[in-house]
């Protein structure tokens, strides 16, 4: 599903964000990216989403080399990749329903599809009863569920999560992890960058550890360190 070959990414300030990385992730895998702040986890995620382009090496997503992807094709790549962030990125002027519907609306899905899929996904994340609330009326955990719903409503092949529990207390984090686990069980590949030792140690999934841009560990059923 994802293949990273000899990828190096350096930012303008000449800090090396990723150095000669080689990773292969199969369809349906659940992968944790761990490491200190600035170790390159976010760059890893941003490269997969083509928010960044590697300086060297190749990245394959679903069998396609996305390095040479022309800019007008990038949106179609992103339709296969859902994204969840630490800061939720919900639109404050839209209700829960509208926030999720927006993701379908802007890729041209017809109203009938929106009206069928949005309630279903809100049901999946357990927020059907809050669909006409605004984000600021929800708890952090609920907001993150909305953001997961938005990322998953289009049934992407891959779900990227950049510290999705970073702003949440441990109990709420567990709920989000259950949700991601359920999504993973539907066959969606999940790549999650995290600092949360408890989560990594409990879930026992594949762990890739980064240290100053270099992959220092790639362990199946691993722990935080």
């Amino acid at each position, binding site marked *: 599903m994802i293949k990273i070959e000899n990828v190096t990414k350096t930012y303008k300030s000449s800090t090396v964000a990723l150095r000669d990385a080689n990773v292969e992730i199969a369809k349906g895998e659940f992968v944790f990216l761990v490491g200190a702040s600035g170790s390159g986890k976010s760059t890893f995620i941003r490269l997969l*989403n083509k928010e960044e382009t590697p300086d060297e090496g190749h990245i394959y997503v679903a069998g396609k080399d996305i390095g040479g992807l022309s*800019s*007008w094709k990038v*949106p*179609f*790549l*992103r*339709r296969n990749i859902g*994204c969840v962030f630490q800061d939720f*990125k919900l*639109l*404050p002027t839209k209700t829960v329903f509208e926030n999720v519907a*927006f*993701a379908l*609306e*802007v*890729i*041209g899905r*017809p*109203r009938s599809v929106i009206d069928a899929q949005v309630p279903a996904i809100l049901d999946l994340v357990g927020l059907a009863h809050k669909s006409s609330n605004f984000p600021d009326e929800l708890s952090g955990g609920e907001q993150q569920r909305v953001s997961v719903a*938005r*990322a998953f409503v*289009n049934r992407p092949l891959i779900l990227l999560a950049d510290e999705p529990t970073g702003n949440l207390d441990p109990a709420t984090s567990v709920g989000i992890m259950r949700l991601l686990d359920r999504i993973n069980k539907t066959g969606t590949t999940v790549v999650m960058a995290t600092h949360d030792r408890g989560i990594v140690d409990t879930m026992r999934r594949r762990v890739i550890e980064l240290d100053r841009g270099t992959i220092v560990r790639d362990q199946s059923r691993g722990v935080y360190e």
Partner: protein
Amino acid sequence: MKAEYYVRETASNLGRNITITLASVMTVAVSLALVGASLMLRSGVENATRRWQGGIEFVVFMNPNPTQEQVDAVRTDLEQSPEVSKIDYVDKKAAYEEFKMLFADSPELVDSVDPETLPPSFRVEPVNKEVDAVEALGKTYSKMSGVRQVVFASKTIRLIQQLSSRLTVGIFVIAAFLLGAAGLLILNTIRMAMFARRREIEVMKLVGATNWFIRVPFMLEGLVQGLIGALLAIAALAAFKPFFQKWLPSSKDIPLVSGFQVSSGEMLFIFGTLGVVGILIGAIGAGIAVSRFLDV
């Protein structure tokens, strides 16, 4: 679905910064109204002095019904004269068309004139355009058989033509600056709209909205501003047109300026030009804003 989305987004963009939107619309309107007014002035002057365009210095009017021999004699003489650089024969029909144009504001006069009574004429551009030389040359034709009268371009007409062409240039320069300002204002309005919508834009990119889908509402915003400005200018000119035609005092002193007219065909052309320029300014402003400030 898409169309509905574009209309909704564009309308909300326009409404969000209503004051600066109005500023750019009004600047477009004022500058285009100036362009339009100077185009009208130019057409008016051209129509009023039509027979004196292009270096024509005098006109040889024949009798209303000259014989073919008489016409041919004058033509041959003019064509063979080394002092004549160009002639233009206006037959009865062409003369009537021009008459209709000149007196379009008094249709009863046009109705009362029988095309048959209008004289054909030769318009003559002499090689030497000194006043004395032109007069001497012209007068030689007034004696020829079948010639009724020779009329010379007056100083007044020359003056009007010069004034109008300089005025047109001046107004165009001012209008160009204003149009530039309008373009910059539009660019800025759109930039502000983008800033206001930066969260939406970020999410749209994230979930895979195409670049054009993100751009279109902003492009439309610019187009709409340009178009509304142009429509305001057109409305202003249409309202102003009746006054414009009575602008030059009536024509006792300047007989040939009796018809200070802009035909409806010319007005349509002017309005069309304004519409196109308005849309163009909007599109250019929006295009720059979208390519510079919308990082998709």
